[in-house]
């Protein structure tokens, strides 16, 4: 623990680090969370006005697929953590591998979600069926767009990692993309129980 002692102040306290990644991404993350947060609250109050419709429709959702997608997204976030850890020790190859793994899981999330949508569309359910399905389809598709956007961001970082653009000393971009990906995970952590579980 001697190395730690060198960084501590006289109170034995480590200095706070800067936010991981670009400060601008954190403003963007807060803005996105605000938009989703308002939608979550609107959903909850809309439900309060149509309890029976919401409860009956919610029971038709595939909770197994919702849970599978939660596990997929959490695991992809973990892979991104490992990627950031790898570039911090200058292992760009390993960092890129973890990110490719996270992207593969992102693709799995999209496939599972489209499968789920297909089940609903095949049963004749659309945005206009009732308010519950309108919220369910809108919230989950909007979130899906963010998964897609996150995958594009991670793809750009993989390209730059392979190009040798990031090192242990300079990996700001990796942390910026990682923060966005974790936000996508964070939003799903609320969306999943809200829309699939609690009634």
């Amino acid at each position, binding site marked *: *623990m001697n*190395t*730690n002692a060198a*960084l*501590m102040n006289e109170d*034995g*306290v*480590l*200095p*706070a*680090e*800067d*936010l*991981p990644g670009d400060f601008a991404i*954190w403003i963007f993350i*807060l803005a996105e*969370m605000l938009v989703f*947060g308002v939608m*979550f*609250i609107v959903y*909850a*109050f809309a*439900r*309060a006005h149509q309890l029976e419709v919401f409860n009956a429709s919610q029971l038709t959702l595939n*909770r*197994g697929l919702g*849970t599978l997608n*939660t*596990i997929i997204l*959490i*695991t992809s*976030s*973990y892979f*991104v*953590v*490992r990627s*950031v*850890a790898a570039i*911090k*020790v200058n292992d760009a190859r390993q960092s890129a591998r973890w990110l490719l793994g996270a992207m593969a899981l992102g693709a799995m999330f999209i496939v599972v979600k489209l499968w789920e949508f297909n089940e609903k569309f095949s049963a004749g359910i659309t945005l206009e069926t009732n308010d519950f399905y309108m919220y369910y389809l809108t919230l989950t598709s909007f979130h899906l767009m963010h998964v897609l956007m996150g995958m594009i961001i991670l793809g750009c970082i993989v390209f730059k990692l392979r190009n040798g653009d990031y090192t242990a000393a300079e990996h700001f971009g990796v*942390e910026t993309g*990682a*923060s966005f990906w*974790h*936000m996508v*995970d*964070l939003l799903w*952590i*609320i969306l*999943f*129980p*809200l829309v*699939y*579980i*609690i*009634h």
Partner: protein
Amino acid sequence: MDHTFPTGLYHPLIMNKPINHFSTRIWLVLIMLTMLTFAIGEEVAQGKAVMLSVLAIAFIKGQLIANYFMGLRYVSWLWRGIIMGYFVVVGGMVAIAYLL
């Protein structure tokens, strides 16, 4: 006191390897909490206490992701406060809507 560094805790700046193992443990806890949420959704006849428990699980998962995956554990308390506040406000409003 937030940045006190007791033995057994790892700081990513200093010890990269241990934080990997630590993040694996966080991942395992997150998976277990997800399975618990699923089990509640499948088995339990829901009431207010169950609804609040599921929201509490989401709160814990959110804190674990923000602090250990996003790395907010080591930045200014303000950012941890914002994320925690977000979960409290959104979760609280959802709970109010369900209790109405």
